[in-house]
């Protein structure tokens, strides 16, 4: 507690401070589960909610009191019941919900810009301004070139090849972002949340400074999100990140994308679709670390077929700019020349620098993520954090869930733990991926005996278009309980298909339940309810796999 309390800041009672530290240190003891949270890409969704049932009941009582220390109503006066720093998905959701519970809420956010920095951001946050939304709009635009290709097999012919005008796209995209940031502002206003533009910084456990002005609050919520993280190599100043890639003044002619994660793959698809030459450089042998192995193989095969060149096991060492303005990327394996752009999609970091966190005693992980307990409470009782700033599962709907749970816990008198089980997610690569639950590798590790059902087929549309598009689907089933542990899809419409499947997986449904569902014909999704015979059975004890014969007969019957 190093911060010098301002006059308005309430002095902490020794007892409450001690209690807070005690409970927090207890949380920290449970660090073996922590790596799940602090991993670079949280799509390796933890099978169980982290920190589950670790907190003593006393702590809960405190929290449910929701009025400050130790369950008793804190008599002090604050400007606000809640001050939220950062108006992205998590912050806006938490603020709105808190306000509906009757709390007096303020939220601060940096001025709008499509490119984020220490001094620019915008209401709506990463998702709306620099992530999900603009990315998907660009995906929509880029997908058309594939659709034009497809249409030829269906009888459509073009006098001239369709041309793409980058500036139209970017202008329309930015108009939409402006509209959305306006909508978010209205949403806040309509729920009675005070919006303050400026950079918020924590002064003490109950005080936030926004550009020199101090605001006191019973609770502070940090939801400042994350930002792209570029490695420190020579010439890195010539590289762009995903913020910039979403708002380039002109279309790249030839682009190097460094990284094998979902952001790299999504942009590879976008630029390929818009007819740039795309090279993807990844350090590993395969893309999408943490995803199901078969999906990793399948998606890179399909993307290669669409013209993306993958450079595997190449670590970038330097960027060189030649006299003609073109860029070269030097890696451990050699140098590739002639790039108009080099983009780094090498991970994101929590925006926790210069927030005053360390000074008030909010503990951070090594990568800057705010450490929180299962209720999103930091090591300081009155300070909470949700979303990418905590680097748990960095997805918009998860930030929404965390924000909603926070508001319920603190202002709704209903202590609520976000549930990280069976959180579905999508990669909007081309073709896209949808997944929910465990990967095959995780399932084997956790359950030992699992049955794997796969389908790899040419969708109806591709039979006419003549394009080499395929769809891959995989169900992972617990051999003992028949429960569906994970579903992984790659192919057209996968993100839309997986949502309903996620309800079923979350509800703990079995393979028999899937089989009893009648298909919708003709769809791709019907394949998921007509997978009769396991592709393979994985058993800890190999002899138990001999039961296979019986099932083979049965599945032959069913197929």
């Amino acid at each position, binding site marked *: 507690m190093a911060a010098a309390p301002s006059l308005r800041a309430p002095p902490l009672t020794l007892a409450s401070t001690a209690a807070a530290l005690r409970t927090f240190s207890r949380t920290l003891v449970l660090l073996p589960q922590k790596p799940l949270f602090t991993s670079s890409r949280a799509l390796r969704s933890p099978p169980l909610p982290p920190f589950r049932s670790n907190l003593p009941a006393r702590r809960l009582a405190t929290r449910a009191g929701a009025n400050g220390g130790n369950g008793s109503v804190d008599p002090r006066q604050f400007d606000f019941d809640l001050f939220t720093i950062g108006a992205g998905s998590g912050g806006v959701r938490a603020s709105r919900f808190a306000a509906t519970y009757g709390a007096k809420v303020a939220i601060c956010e940096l001025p709008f810009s499509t490119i984020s920095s220490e001094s620019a951001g915008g209401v709506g946050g990463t998702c709306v301004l620099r992530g999900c939304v603009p990315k998907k709009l660009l995906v929509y635009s880029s997908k058309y070139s594939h659709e034009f290709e497809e249409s030829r097999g269906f009888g459509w012919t073009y006098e001239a090849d369709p041309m793409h005008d980058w500036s139209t796209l970017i202008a329309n995209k930015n108009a939409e972002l402006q509209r959305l940031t306006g909508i978010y502002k209205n949403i806040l206003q309509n729920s009675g949340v005070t919006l303050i533009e400026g950079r918020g910084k924590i002064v003490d456990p109950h005080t936030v400074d926004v550009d020199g002005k101090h605001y006191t609050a019973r609770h502070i919520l940090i939801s400042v999100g994350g930002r792209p993280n570029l490695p420190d190599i020579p010439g890195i100043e010539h590289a762009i990140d995903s913020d910039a890639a979403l708002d380039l003044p002109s279309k790249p002619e030839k682009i190097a994308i460094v990284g094998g994660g979902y952001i790299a793959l999504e942009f590879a698809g976008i630029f390929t679709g818009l007819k740039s030459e795309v090279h993807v450089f990844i350090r590993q042998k395969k893309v999408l670390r943490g995803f199901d192995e078969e999906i990793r193989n399948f998606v890179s095969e399909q993307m290669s077929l669409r013209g993306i060149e993958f450079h595997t096991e190449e670590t970038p060492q330097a960027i060189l700019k030649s006299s003609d303005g073109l860029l070269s990327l030097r890696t451990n394996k050699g140098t590739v020349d002639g790039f108009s752009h080099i983009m780094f999609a090498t991970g994101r970091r929590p925006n926790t620098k210069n927030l005053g966190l360390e000074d008030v005693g909010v503990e951070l992980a090594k990568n800057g993520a705010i450490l929180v307990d299962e209720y999103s409470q930091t090591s300081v009782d009155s300070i909470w954090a949700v979303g990418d700033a905590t680097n748990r599962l960095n*997805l918009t709907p998860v930030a929404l869930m965390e924000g909603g749970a926070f508001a319920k816990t603190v202002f709704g008198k209903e202590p609520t733990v976000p549930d990280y089980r069976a959180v579905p997610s999508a990669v909007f690569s081309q073709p896209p991926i949808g997944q929910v639950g465990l990967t095959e590798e995780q399932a084997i590790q956790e359950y030992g005996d699992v049955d794997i059902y796969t389908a790899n087929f040419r969708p109806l549309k591709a039979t006419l278009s003549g394009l080499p598009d395929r769809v891959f689907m995989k169900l992972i089933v617990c051999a003992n309980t028949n429960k569906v542990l994970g579903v992984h899809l790659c192919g057209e419409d996968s993100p839309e298909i997986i949502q309903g499947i996620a309800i079923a997986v979350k509800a703990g449904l079995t393979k028999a339940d899937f089989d009893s569902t009648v298909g919708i014909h*003709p769809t*791709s999704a019907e394949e998921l309810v007509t997978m009769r015979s396991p592709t393979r059975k994985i058993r800890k004890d190999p002899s138990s796999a001999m039961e296979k014969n019986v099932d083979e007969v049965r599945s032959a019957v069913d197929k």
Partner: protein
Amino acid sequence: MDSTDRFGIGIRASRAILFLWRGIVMARKMLVDGELGQTIDEEKQYDFDLFVIGAGSGGVRASRTSAAFGAKVAICELPFHPISSEVIGGIGGTCVIRGCVPKKILVYGAQFRGEFEDCRNFGWELSDQIDFNWKKLLHNKTQEITRLNGIYKRLLSNAGVTMFEGEGKLIDAHLVEVTQSDGTTKQYSAKHILIATGSRAQRVNIPGKELAITSDEALSLDELPKRVVILGGGYIAVEFASIWRGLGAEVDLFYRKELPLRGFDDEMRAVVAKNLEGRGIRLHPGTNLSELRNGENGVRVLTDHGDEITADVVLFATGRLPNTKRLNLQAVGVEVDKTGAIKVDEYSRTTVPNIWAVGDVTNRMNLTPVALMEGTCFSKTVFGGQPTKPDYIDIPCAVFCIPPLSVVGLNEQQALEQAKSDILVYTSSFNPMKNTISGRQEKTVMKLVVDSETDKVLGASMCGPDAPEIMQGLAVALKCGATKAQFDGTVGIHPSAAEEFVTMRSITRRVAAGAKPKANI
């Protein structure tokens, strides 16, 4: 045998529940009959254990699964042709040759027009002249269904099923006669006979009806029509309206009711109607056609409102009837209902104990996946030693109009009819993200109907892009009795349309049990 009790159960989708309820009463009886039949038959020798008439979805599935249980199986089917008649058909049946598959191929083809419109605001510059070559689409479609026809043949031969080409008909309870295309006939005896002859499109009886076509011909027209009149409000009518509009024709759609798609949720029917209009289809609700005449430059279509339109093609999408006329059913004692549908019990057994029927010929729920289910249940019951009833609860289905409609479970009206407690209706009508840029004025609409007492989701429907793909997963959840809380407990996929189904937090309306359904007509 009390045949009235056993077989008087013409099941329609909407009566599925009643059907199942009765099924419980009859289950015991079925088992007894099964055993009885076996002891008698064991003494005789037959050419086959099973002879299947009709190699469509249900027939092929039943043949293959029966063969896998060890039965000696034969199947007969008419020679292949895209347009069906009494003497032509083809392995694969309606679904593969004249239904789901070619229809969806044409829908894909038609969807591109919307994409061409939508892509411009995404930065694409297309020449004003985008040509569509119908002959190429038709050629590629025919090539694909020919390929599928071949695949189905291979599936059958790999399963050890003997195939005969020709028209099958019953001679007696254990004898089938197959008439080949050269007129020669052969007879085969079988312990069990399965009728899976499907159905065919029907024309309404008005003067000049011979000038109209059915969906069979519509899928294989030589020339793409410029002006089309469609009669009918069912799914086939709206699908073809979307197809032809997408391929560039002027489309006029006539139907008797106020809204198309009778039997679907009223609110969703209104959405579909609005979308069809939004895509440029002219709707004529409450209007029938009274006469067709040959005109100088097309078919002159007269309506019962006294209007006249000229069209290149008039499509009758006015229902389908079971293909039972030439099977000699009556002579053998197989009863059919008024529409010609074969009466079956819950195990698909006809009034003759060793003759069975599955699929559209029984006019239960006329969907490919249902015929597959019935075919599999038949095999399990007859050859697998596990009497199995098809389950008609929560069967999802899709209408591939543009944009498509897909539903599972009860619609609001059905839910209210069956409700013991209040019904909670959640609706969401939103501008899909793609339209925010494209500027297309077309909302996606979703709806959940929930039982207020049990929290069970009774029905889900959606009209909008990808609805059929989205609905399949919801169907798994509904089938297993998922609650609204379980929907809410599922995290969304962002950004998707489907995430709306798990983020519907506020009730649109609560309707008291027994109240009259609210219909936005």
